[in-house]
């Protein structure tokens, strides 16, 4: 059961295999496999919170096996899954002293910036640590999270401010990015409309009264 080669499996088989593996969640023997799967999650576009939290739980129960680099990786994946609370759930199970040391500290700092929506500081922090840029799709996922928060906050936002919050300083890059959000995001001269016409309509609807 444990000596299955993860690399040889297709991605759906892999998820299925990992799911059966973590059913036996107090067996430290599965930790190695879960660490391996974590690396796959970092390099490919897959994410399984349950697998990572099981691994963390195994560390909690078997402190001698604790692997800080693996925790850093699962925290990075949790940040990439914002606005879900995965990061919070993991941090409840990480001893407080190692939260305050590298390699984990930088992740907790970034978490705080993102939670409090200090996006400019968040970008400065991300750019200062190569750890983040080494994870494929990391910046992109963070950018998408920020876009989501801005979408629910702003009706219209100036182009320059949007570029700054998304860390896309060049005009071309920004326009390119906005294109990926077509139909909902639209450029009007120097501002960008972040909400589609339909969602505006929905908002208006909530104010009409029942006429039956």
């Amino acid at each position, binding site marked *: 059961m444990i000596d299955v080669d993860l690399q040889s499996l297709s991605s759906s088989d892999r998820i299925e295999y990992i799911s059966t593996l973590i059913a036996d969640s107090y067996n430290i023997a599965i930790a190695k496999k879960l660490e391996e799967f974590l690396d796959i999650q970092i390099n490919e576009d897959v994410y399984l919170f349950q697998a990572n939290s099981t691994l963390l739980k195994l560390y909690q129960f078997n*402190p001698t096996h604790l692997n800080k680099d693996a925790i850093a990786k699962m925290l990075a994946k949790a940040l990439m899954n914002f606005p879900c609370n995965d990061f919070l759930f993991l941090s*409840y199970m990480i001893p*407080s002293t190692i939260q305050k040391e590298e390699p984990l500290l930088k992740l907790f700092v970034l978490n705080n910036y993102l939670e409090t929506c200090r996006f400019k500081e968040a970008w400065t922090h991300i750019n200062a640590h190569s750890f983040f840029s080494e994870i494929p799709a990391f910046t992109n996922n963070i950018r998408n999270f920020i876009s989501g928060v801005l979408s629910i*906050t702003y*009706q219209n936002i100036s182009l320059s401010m949007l570029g700054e919050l998304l860390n896309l300083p060049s005009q071309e890059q920004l326009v390119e990015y906005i294109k990926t959000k077509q139909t909902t995001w639209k450029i009007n001269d120097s501002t960008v409309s972040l909400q589609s016409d339909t969602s505006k309509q929905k908002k208006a609807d909530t104010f009409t009264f029942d006429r039956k």
Partner: protein
Amino acid sequence: MSQNNRKGGNKNFQKNNQNNNNNQQGGQQQQQQGGHQKHHNKHNQQNNQQQGGQQQGKGRGKAPTNVESFPINLTPQQIQQFQTYQQQIQSNPSPQFQSNYLPPATALFTPVINYFINLYSNFKSQSHQDILVSYDSFFKACETYYPHCSLPTIENLLPVLGDKFEDSFTDRFFVLLYKEIYYRYYYALVFQPNITTCVESWQNYYQIFHTLLSANSPNDVEIDLPNAWLWDLVDEFVYQYHTFAKFKLKKQDVDFLSENPEIWDTTNVIRYLYYIIKKSQIFSATTNRFENSSEDFCSHPVYKMLGYYSVISLVRVQCLLGDYTLALKTLELIDMGKKAMYTYVTACHITLYYYLGFAYIMSRKYNEATKALNTILVSVASKSKSSSFQSDHNEKKIDKMYALLTICQALYPNKIDENVNNNLKEKFGDKLLRLQKGDLSVYEELYTFAAPRCIGPVPPYISGYNVTALDSHRLQLSLFLEEVKQQSLLTTIRSYITLYSTISIQKLATLLQMDPEDLRVKLTCYKHKLFNVLGKGENKWNNQLDIDFYIDQDMIHIDNRLYAKETDSFINSILKFEGSLTPSYNWM
């Protein structure tokens, strides 16, 4: 009579624990030597005052002497332990001295003997109602006759059954159950029992679980127990685990445990709960159940309810370990309908909702937590009328739940039952005001009061971390306060924007005396946190107390739901009124 009176009385001991301990030291001293009498009397008085008004009144201070009793011959081991204890008391007579030892019972009292025989024969009859009555009365008798010492051991009591006791499965199981009661009583009276007692109690649970788990067919298990007893059994198992995990261990204890790592080990505790759940088949798919109907343990009420209560206890352990996703996921197994099985025993009902509410708060689902806490508080409010002397233990949990609800109301105001709201204002009204002003110290105070004391799965001597690094309870608290800090100012902003339908960021920043750029960040944060609470699928207009807004470049547009609701209902009434007039026009 409520099923929980017994438990209540029992836990009641815990509350006055220190007092009892002191008292009990004194009590023994008086009997044995007469030393330290002054000190003893003082405590005895205090204790009596506290206990006054309860059914036994003065009984708590000293066991009644006006009944027939037979002396118990102590074993050499008991005598030796007792003497060590005596020496300890003499070398450390301070009232703060926390005993971890309970002196043995020295006499068998006739009423206790009668209740015990009663309990035994009712147990054999397997009638729920009768067992429950004798279970309750046996405990009451013990509280009266053994207020400061442990219960007689099963070896002391078995002779009174005489020929009635047989060497059958049922009778052997009765012995295990009595031992469980013996240790439960010990734990109730002593704050931190000595390690020998902990180990013995663990071994007894091991025996109980193994007996149940090794049965091949439900027909072999000729026992039946009332739900309240089954709940007490599982609940006490987790309580003793929790007590043990909170221990500050002495050097010699550590040495002992290193050689016996299975004792009260987290993985083992979880494993037993899990095995019982599995054995009970209560949550297994129906297809499996048809295949081997002869071994259908779910049809056996003891297995079925033990399995069910084990799930609730497992949720409790998961919460204590800080794994809230798993706790909430486990809870999905439980049918939360109005007449669900957890309502059979009040203590179980309360425990379940307490941990549910707590797990939701730690998951930032404040509105879900509010719903859950509101439901249970409405439900207990209607119950407490019927049984006025409800247990202290439940009352304490209820107070804690009010405190949790107060935190929810501060972080995310929601409509709650009017009665519950009044009670909340009465208990924590002033605290709520200070929470709303963002007073972190009050958040800390309420959290510390209301939250369960979280623990690490591995004691420090194994993990190698120092105690503070692994202080799980402190970690949960600091993460909770961090979240509150992140939310700070949001309530202030909320109270300001309620007053407007549109306001520029510049103007609001001036009003709040903060930098406009910072305000932008805070407003974005408000939206993010709101989304966090509500989750993806939910309709954000469910909450009528809340307001929402959006930013159009530099202007904030506010949708005030409260206001809109009033307008809506006003216009609706006009329309209705018009509608009621229309027919008369038609006639004309």
